[in-house]
């Protein structure tokens, strides 16, 4: 490695152990970040990455081991102390306050914000300088996820950090926004800021990071130079096993259109949601149709409109196998074969406080015959849940445990599996691998591909472009409630999709400086 790592590390973690009741989240973890280094922390969900960075940021305290800051051992008592040292953090689940303004949110994350007028000017300056447009006066609940992330980044930058911790920062950004973020991060690194970068997107880590520390089961299992590795080799270090790549059926012929949506127009129920405007597309039997787009462009509304949680104006708007279902509700659509997986698994896809068996009954009672006239068929329900767990490799102590106790990836496998085992004719899935580790993501992708191979029409709504490029046959981009025309995935270019994703949306994020890309697209 280059000579700069021989200097005193900015941050060194030595033998840090953290136990929670029943789990060792971190087990004698060692690693170091040098000045100006971009260091990746890689690991599956539950590998202990979040626990580790929370200790560095002072939210949690290590049971054993020491943290060294510029070579000096110290205790980081709380986040105030961390910030005083020059540690900034961008959280995966944003630490934002919805009903408050951007400016208030930024001030809350600073120890000496100064007076608000000056701070507002500084926010504008920093957001301009780093290409992160923000209006300080807006209320946070009116912003998209991407804009919310900018708040966190700007908040950190305002405090001249020496070490910036970024937890899964790119999952909500367009490819253009990602490259702009990377420019920002490289610029910061060149200024001597150390960056601790957590992501499951291995290609990004290859592009951006100087070194990577790989965690598995709370232990450091390996370190590597990402540039010298392939994404696949890093994924294997991460999960500690051979990573199955998704196998596509080759050139299988597609059948008749199974799902036809014609002129779906839906006013959002959410005050700051996006109205759907005249959305039309069709998905053939055996086809995987992708819907790309930056979060908050109508995906939630589209999913509600497809699943039947919201009804269309006319019956003819949505058809499955020539049966008109536009005015049928979610339960009825499910009976006719349209199953769906919403984005939010806890509380929408599954009831966190209910057992896996009960959660199975909730969506599959009709198609799987789990309910007789009055009573739940306990035996059949238990067998169904057990079958999901077995078929989709859901890691759980049993089917009687509450859905909320499962890790994100395992619950997602359960929810997706529950719908697939109902043998749908059309499956609508939103964000199938959001916050899911590489192993589980590969399993879910394979399941979707296999399902399509059986002649099911599959719709995948996702913000993860790599995912869509990997598994879809055709895709379209949704932007402020308008769906672009569909393109064949293999012929589509990332640049083109990225422009469609980012183009018009840039308007409401940067009212002061119309985006060059906007003009380009318009």
């Amino acid at each position, binding site marked *: 490695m280059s000579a700069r790592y021989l200097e005193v590390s900015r941050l060194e973690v030595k033998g840090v152990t953290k136990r929670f009741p029943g789990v060792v989240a971190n087990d004698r973890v060692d690693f170091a970040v040098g000045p100006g280094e971009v260091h990746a922390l890689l690991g599956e969900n539950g590998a202990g990455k979040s626990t580790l960075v929370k200790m560095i940021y002072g939210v949690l305290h290590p049971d054993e081991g020491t943290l060294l800051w510029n070579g000096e051992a110290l205790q980081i008592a*709380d*986040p105030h102390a961390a*910030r005083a040292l020059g540690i900034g953090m961008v959280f995966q689940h944003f630490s934002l306050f919805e009903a408050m303004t951007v400016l208030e949110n930024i001030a809350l994350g600073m120890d000496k914000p100064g007076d608000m007028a000056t701070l507002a000017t500084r926010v504008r300056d920093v957001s301009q300088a780093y290409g992160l447009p923000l209006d300080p006066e807006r209320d946070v609940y009116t912003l998209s996820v991407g804009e919310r992330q900018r708040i966190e980044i700007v908040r950190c930058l305002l405090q001249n950090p020496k070490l910036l911790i970024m937890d899964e920062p790119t999952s909500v950004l367009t490819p253009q926004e990602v490259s702009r973020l990377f420019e920002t991060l490289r610029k910061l690194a060149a200024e001597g800021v150390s960056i601790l970068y957590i992501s499951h997107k291995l290609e990004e880590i290859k592009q951006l990071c100087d070194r990577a520390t790989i965690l598995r089961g709370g232990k450091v299992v390996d370190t590597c130079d990402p540039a010298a590795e392939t994404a696949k080799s890093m994924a294997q270090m991460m999960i500690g096993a051979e990573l199955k790549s998704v196998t596509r059926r080759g050139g299988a012929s597609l059948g008749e259109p199974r799902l036809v949506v014609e002129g779906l127009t839906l006013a959002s129920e959410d005050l700051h949601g996006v109205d759907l405007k005249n959305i039309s597309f069709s998905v053939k039997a055996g086809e995987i149709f992708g819907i790309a787009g930056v979060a908050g462009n109508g995906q939630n509304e589209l999913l509600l409109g497809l699943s039947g949680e919201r009804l269309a104006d006319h019956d003819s708007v949505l058809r499955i196998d020539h049966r008109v279902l536009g005015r049928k509700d979610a339960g009825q659509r499910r009976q006719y074969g349209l199953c769906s997986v919403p984005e939010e698994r806890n509380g929408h896809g599954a009831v966190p406080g209910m057992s896996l068996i009960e959660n199975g009954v909730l969506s599959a009672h009709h198609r799987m015959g789990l309910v007789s006239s009055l009573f739940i068929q306990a035996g059949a329900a238990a067998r169904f849940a057990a079958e999901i767990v077995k078929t989709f490799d859901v890691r759980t102590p049993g089917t009687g445990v509450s859905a909320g106790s499962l890790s994100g990836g395992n619950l997602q496998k359960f929810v997706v599996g529950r719908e697939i085992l109902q043998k749908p004719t059309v499956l609508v899935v939103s964000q199938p691998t959001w916050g899911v580790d590489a192993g589980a993501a590969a399993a879910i992708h394979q399941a979707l591909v296999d399902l399509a191979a059986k002649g099911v029409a599959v719709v995948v709504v996702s913000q993860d472009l790599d995912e869509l490029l990997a598994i879809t046959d055709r895709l379209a981009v949704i932007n402020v409630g308008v769906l672009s025309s569909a393109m064949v995935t293999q012929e589509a270019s990332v640049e083109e999709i990225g422009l469609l994703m980012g183009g018009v949306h840039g308007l409401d994020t940067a009212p002061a400086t119309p985006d060059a890309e906007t003009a380009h697209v318009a």
Partner: protein
Amino acid sequence: MTLDILVPIILTVVGSATPLLFAALGELVVEKSGVLNLGVEGMMIMGAVAAFGVAVSTGSGTLGIVAGAAAGMAMAFVFGVLTLTLAANQVATGLALTIFGLGLSALLGAGFVGIPVAPLAKLAIPGISDLPVIGPLLFAHDALVYLSLAAVVGVAWFLKKSRAGMILRAVGESDISAHSIGYDVIAVRYRAVLFGGAMAGLGGAFLSLSYTPLWNEGMTAGRGWIALALVVFATWRPWRLLAGAYLFGGVTILQLYSQGAGVAIPAQVLSMLPYLATILVLTIIAAGPWKGRLDAPACLGKPFRPST
């Protein structure tokens, strides 16, 4: 002529609004921090009995006021230990606090029933207070009335402009976020709950020392509940709360005068009005174009257990 009738009516409205204003303003701050304390009635009546007892025993109205606030705070502290430190259910604990307060105050106050106390002195400004109409309306109240109005200004400024107020709102909006940024959620909530207790205690003290300078078992007569309704009615905004307190206070007085004037509206209908108004406001907010976002703090009533 009409003025001669109106002035005393308005004065009684002030008297009936002030205890509501105190209690509701305290509860507003508590709820803004994300805590729902349904024990307002219990804290108020403990404030009333403590203020009365101390004022009678020492002969000092000021000491009575202090005792009322302290008693409300003591009750709030019990609530805080249960719901904040021990993370008990806030609704159940609040209800228990009310029942406990009503019972304990009856026990402690048994010896004070029927004893008179000198009402709190009016703060008169020579010359100005003698002005017709304006004098009695604006410049001849006791200290607690002015304090309640000053508290509205203070709370409004605190929540909107001060950093501590911003942190308090943040804690009520998302306890987990506030914790991860590094704020001590429990400590902020303790302070808010104690403030709420003190304010409820002051409301009680006003009742037993000024409004009706007597002690009676159960003399708060549901005002704590009206105060809770008032916070929702005002959609958690101090200035609307001021208007609401005087409106609800006015309705209470209307009920007395309409009976006196022989208007054929049953008193029960009028005493329903504050609650009906609250339901109406909630309905309007929920049905209006701004639906989905009541100004309710997002974490209201949720217990918070920090991980360490």
